[in-house]
């Protein structure tokens, strides 16, 4: 009977040996305080593990062997009694008898705990993303040094993971290496650093999702303001340069020759500031100008000058002839006293206009017979006073001194004029007239 039972049992063992009882184990150190966990499972999930037991012997503290606990298809042992030095043996037993054994070292099959609390923070100033995560192994005594692997991808791109290995718990991802305005997911796992403890990758951490910002054309507000102000400043300077080129800039950069008429006006202005000096006949519109018959004036001048020593040139006579046209004389209402005349103006005008510079003033001041020369004297002002627009106008008879125009004595006037301007009075008048009309 005993021999029959023995044969049956041996048959059972033969059937059991045909199955593949290969198994794998991993250890987790300090998983619960100071307690370690060793987990084993058959590689073939179809193995009937009903009566199978796992046992570990060797490299244990104060005991020789320990038996595994079973949870569904997994065999595990939770203990503090791992020596962590040297090899151990794992036995698979059926009914107390060894089916298979495996020699392993607890410190070489370590599986770390999965990292957690992974976060991604966008740093606008640095244009990058700071990835941080945490691991429970930073607080452990034995398995402290780990190697981490961060994997990230764009959500729409499946199986297109990017991997980064690091030993610390911080990682920086550059913004320019990521797609703008895209959704990304990121996860991390760990493995022992292979210094003494070795093993397998941990489980992946929970995935974290983050969105990359859009690339906008907005510039920094300060920079934008400065750019706009600079643009407008430059534009304003260009406009001002174009507008003031002729009047202000060009005279300084490329000064033009001074205008003789304006220069003369300025010179005449200096002694008498309240005088209106101008070559423009429109300045004298409010003055009463008595026009003198050009031929009569010339005859009178010639007769007056018959006794003079100086002679007029032919060109000056022609000029005088041209200048005789269109003279206008101040009206009867315009009056000027000899005193005023001597001191101020050689011409009569309510406004006190003067069309002759100081040479004429000097000549007129020397004339003692201003009144007498008023009628007979030549109308010396015609060429000086009048513009080209005044022609064919009648020349009124000069009025007496008090009430009319004071005309200078030709003699007295002519000589200084001729002295200052040329050889004769007529010549001087011609010169001034032609000077004016030849503008």
């Amino acid at each position, binding site marked *: 009977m005993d021999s029959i039972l023995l044969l049956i049992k041996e048959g059972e063992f033969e059937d059991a040996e045909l199955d593949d009882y290969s198994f794998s184990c991993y250890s987790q150190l300090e998983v619960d305080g100071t307690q370690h966990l060793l987990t084993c499972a058959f590689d073939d999930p179809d193995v009937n593990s009903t009566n199978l037991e796992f046992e570990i012997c060797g490299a244990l*503290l104060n005991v020789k062997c320990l038996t595994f606990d079973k949870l569904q298809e997994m065999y595990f042992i939770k203990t503090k009694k791992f020596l*962590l*030095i040297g090899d151990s043996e794992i036995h698979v037993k059926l009914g107390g008898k060894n089916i298979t054994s495996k020699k392993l070292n607890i410190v070489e099959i370590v599986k770390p705990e999965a990292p957690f609390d992974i976060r991604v923070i966008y740093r606008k100033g640095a244009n990058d993303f700071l990835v941080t995560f945490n691991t429970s192994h930073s607080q452990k005594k034995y398995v402290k040094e780990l190697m981490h692997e961060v994997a990230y991808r764009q959500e729409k791109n499946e199986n297109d993971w990017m991997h980064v290995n690091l030993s610390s718990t911080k990682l920086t991802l550059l913004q320019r290496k990521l797609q703008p305005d895209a959704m990304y997911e990121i996860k991390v796992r760990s493995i022992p650093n292979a210094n*003494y403890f070795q093993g397998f990758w941990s489980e992946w951490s929970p995935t974290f999702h983050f969105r990359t910002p859009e690339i906008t054309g907005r510039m920094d507000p300060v920079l934008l303001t400065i750019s706009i102000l600079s643009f407008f400043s430059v534009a304003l300077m260009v406009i001002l340069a174009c507008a003031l080129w002729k009047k202000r800039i060009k005279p300084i950069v490329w000064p033009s020759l001074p205008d003789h008429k304006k220069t003369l006006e300025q010179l005449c202005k200096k002694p008498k500031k309240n005088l209106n000096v101008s070559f423009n006949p429109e300045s004298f519109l409010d003055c009463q100008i008595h026009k003198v018959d050009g031929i009569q004036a010339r005859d009178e001048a010639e007769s007056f000058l018959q006794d003079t020593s100086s002679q007029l040139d032919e060109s000056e006579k022609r000029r005088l002839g041209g200048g005789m046209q269109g003279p206008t004389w101040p009206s009867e209402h315009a009056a000027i006293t000899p005193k005023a005349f001597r001191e101020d103006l050689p011409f009569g005008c309510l406004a006190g206009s003067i069309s002759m510079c100081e040479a004429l003033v000097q000549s007129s001041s020397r004339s003692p017979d201003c009144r007498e020369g008023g009628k007979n004297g030549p109308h010396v002002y015609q060429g000086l006073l009048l513009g080209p627009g005044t022609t064919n106008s009648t020349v009124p008879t000069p009025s007496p001194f008090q009430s009319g125009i004071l005309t200078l004595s030709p003699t007295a006037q002519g000589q200084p004029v001729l002295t200052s301007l040329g050889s004769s009075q007529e010549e001087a008048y011609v010169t001034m007239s032609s000077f004016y009309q030849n503008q």
Partner: protein
Amino acid sequence: MPFAGNPSPRAGTEKVSFRYIFGIPPLILVLLPVTSSDCDIEGKDGREYQHVLMISINDLDTMIKNRTNCPNNEPKVFKKHACDDNKEGVFLYRAARKLKQFVKVNNSEDFNLHLSRVSQGTLQLLNCTPKEDNKSVKEQRKQKSLCSLGILLQKIKTCWNKILRGSKEH
């Protein structure tokens, strides 16, 4: 009649035989431990010590300091055995066996486990001759105070550092 001044040849041979039989072997036995080989140390690269043993030694040291206030004088028994040159293995072997004496029931589980880990782990890394086992047993029974344990742990630590320094130099 035998001559008094001349001993018989048979009597001299017997004296020489007894000398060789009963004199020299004990002498050899006494001298043998001195000339015997030292313990071989396997963990000279220091990985096991740095990642496992040193952690338990530091934890034990912390627990002892929290529990006792020890004097500075060193017990005499420790003065006999030192981590001398070429004797580091022997010292560690003896020290590891002494640690077992400190395992007590009234200690905490973690305390006893750390003691066992240092003792057993050190012995695992040493390959000593059986003679060392018999010799140190009597001495191990004497010292059981925590202060002695603290001193012993420091000596073990010092000796390991010496071994590792020596292996780095070589």
